[in-house]
């Protein structure tokens, strides 16, 4: 609820209204989401036994999260044994400060980054710019978003909301000459621009798709190979990792390497998989001279031990839930107003940041369950959304009118005779509103409905009231049927 529109505090619904008026954005989101859904279907079918793979993925992630203390100790020990430096950060501010300290020590003037959602979570780009340090996103989508001075609107496809024309304009503004909307021309511009940045950068910052506990290796999946440049060319490499992003062993990585690209973009395998174990050692031909790993908590450890919410830490950040979400499809990522959009964002943002800030996000879902069905590690996202709504009620954060309405619900629906009375009152009450057999009026509490749809009317006779006569009609029919020459089929209303 923090985003401001025209100086006013807004919630997800207000922000959605902006997106709903943006036909370019909605067309771009639909186009890409459809493409990814189609590719995912093909990629999962060609693998076969997708449900078994998902089950295995869920088991691995659940086991890791349940034993996170053990694996985190093993992982960080191995990172240090391989020559890396490990830092723990309780929250976003501490992680950002740790990055700043390293950059100050290195007197860094220029930083290149490979895509990292944790870096968005700690708002590092903004901080670096404030300190006059040049920072360049080297993932193409992230680069586009950076040029537009925006944030990613999708976990995997940061610029999903942009079309080619808009990208051409952004690149032209950034110095591109004679550009067209052709993919080759646009990527050639980005490639040439970045090449210089890679060669000049003092520090490279990456995220971490998976940390392998048994070896202390950091595994990065990319499609553009940019992570290899970011981790090898600058002298110093900083890894930003959410504390839960671990796998016990390389054998588990095989499962994730099958699940993640298929679920994310419908690829049977990621184009580049970089495995980095510590810093460059004697005899190595590449690698950064110094490697720092920053392990971020920022509300994650609070979920461990919570029977309901712990599974949110199983997330492998593939974005599959966004691609199937019918709400995300309409409003895009920015309307969520949080670093993580879509169904996973509607769960993750309010649990990582307690309080009112993201408390309305769990309501931005029709609970259709498409997210839970799409999740490659079987997180029951729609159940978690319901659970967060329950927490919201328990903490007394819902509006008075809503609480009264459900108190009324409890009174009426706990006894059939009371419900009957309530329905009779509604039948009388609706009289003034009914036109042509339905309700169009946008007055009152139902205006959210009637603004876009006609509402039905309460029936003249409820089924409860109809039952007795219906029963005797059927009995009469049966009696007729037993008589000789009687007509079958019965009365028709």
């Amino acid at each position: 609820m923090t985003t401001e529109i025209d100086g006013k505090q807004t919630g997800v619904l207000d922000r959605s209204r902006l997106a709903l008026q943006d036909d370019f954005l909605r067309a771009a989101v639909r186009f890409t989401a459809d493409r990814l859904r189609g590719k995912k279907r093909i990629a999962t079918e060609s693998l076969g036994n997708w449900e078994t793979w998902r089950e295995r993925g869920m088991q691995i992630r659940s086991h890791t999260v349940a034993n996170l203390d053990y694996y985190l100790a093993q992982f960080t020990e191995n990172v240090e044994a391989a020559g890396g430096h490990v830092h723990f950060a309780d929250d976003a501010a501490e992680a950002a400060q740790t990055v700043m300290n390293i950059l100050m020590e290195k007197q860094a003037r220029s930083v290149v980054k490979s895509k990292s959602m944790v870096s968005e979570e700690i708002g590092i780009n903004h901080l670096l710019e404030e300190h006059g340090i040049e920072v360049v996103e080297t993932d193409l989508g992230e680069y586009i978003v950076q040029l537009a001075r925006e944030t990613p609107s999708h976990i995997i496809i940061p610029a999903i909301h942009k079309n080619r024309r808009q990208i051409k304009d952004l690149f032209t503004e950034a110095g591109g000459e004679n550009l067209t909307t052709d993919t080759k021309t646009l990527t050639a511009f980005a490639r040439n621009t970045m090449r210089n940045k890679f060669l000049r950068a003092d520090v490279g910052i990456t995220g971490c798709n998976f940390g392998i506990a048994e070896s202390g290796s950091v595994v990065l999946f990319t499609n553009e190979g940019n992570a290899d440049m970011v981790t090898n060319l600058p002298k110093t490499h900083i890894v930003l990792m959410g504390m839960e992003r671990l796998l016990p062993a390389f054998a588990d990585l095989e499962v994730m390497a099958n699940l993640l690209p298929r679920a994310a973009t419908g690829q049977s395998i990621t184009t580049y998989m970089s495995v980095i174990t510590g810093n460059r050692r004697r005899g190595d031909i590449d690698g950064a001279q110094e490697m720092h790993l920053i392990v971020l908590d920022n509300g994650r450890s609070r979920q461990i031990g919570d029977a309901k919410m712990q599974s949110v830490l199983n997330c492998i950040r593939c974005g599959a839930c966004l691609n199937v979400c019918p709400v995300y499809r309409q409003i895009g990522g920015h309307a969520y107003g949080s670093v993580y959009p879509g169904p996973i964002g509607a769960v993750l943002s309010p649990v990582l940041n307690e309080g009112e800030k993201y408390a309305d996000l769990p309501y931005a879902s029709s609970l259709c369950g498409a997210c839970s069905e799409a999740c490659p590690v079987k997180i029951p996202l729609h159940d978690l959304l319901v659970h967060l709504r329950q927490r919201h009620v328990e903490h007394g954060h819902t509006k008075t009118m809503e609480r009264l309405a459900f108190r009324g619900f409890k009174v009426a629906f706990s006894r059939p005779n009371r419900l009957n009375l309530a329905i009779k009152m509604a039948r009388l009450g609706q009289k003034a509103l009914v036109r042509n057999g339905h309700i169009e009026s946008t007055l009152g509490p139902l205006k959210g409905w009637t603004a876009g749809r006609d509402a039905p009317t309460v029936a003249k006779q409820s089924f409860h009231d109809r039952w007795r006569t219906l029963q005797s009609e059927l009995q009469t029919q049966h009696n007729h049927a037993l008589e000789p020459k009687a007509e079958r089929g019965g009365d028709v209303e």
Partner: protein
Amino acid sequence: MESYRDEHEHEEGHMMKVSLFVTCLVDNLYPQVGEAMVRLLDHLGVEVDFPQAQTCCGQPAFNSGYVDEARASAKTLLDAFEDANYVISPSGSCTGMVHHYYEEMFADDPKRVRQAVDLADKSYEFSQFLVNVLGVTDIGAFFPYSVTYHPSCHGSRLLGVKDEPLQLLRNVRGLELIDLPYDTDCCGFGGTFAVKMGDISTAMVTEKVSHVRETGARVLVGVDMGCLMNIGGRISREGEQVRVMHLAELLYEGVQAGVSD
């Protein structure tokens, strides 16, 4: 076409008995759907009972986070269907609620948990019961119109009702079944979501109606009145001439036509 009754009515004392869980929406807004179900089941030789003590599965309150309020309503179902053999509803969503959440909702009350598990075990959505329990896929109906089918999210995802309604529709004579593009995408109903997030919900249902329009079908059919109320409300607002029907209504109308045919 021999009906279930024709095959079974000679088996004295073997008449199947089921209890109708009518759901609050059908009870008060669409009673004709409940009636169509009862008449179809009767046609198939199944005896239907309607326990009066039922109100609502509690989903509107539960999904809004009001568990205590949901329990108060859900208890009426646990008591009403205590002695039922089968509990049949015209909604994959309401039956899905019983299956998916009841046990957990009453976790701190052993007696209620037993009732909840028992109720889930014997609860079926209408098409599920016809196809999987009665073994009926051809009900002898005639319905000479083009029809498209919207699979409801809770019915298909929480309860696993996927092919049953289609099996029944494919065996209706004269019926032309047209695939609905993006059929598994939610229509935007989502209970209180449709009111609370009205603009988002309207955008969703507008897209759904555009896909229904693409099919050119005369009739939209489904197995959940929540979704059909939503899609139908948008169809009506846009002035589209598509008839919106619950599967039970369509089949019953088709059976009547099939009998006189």
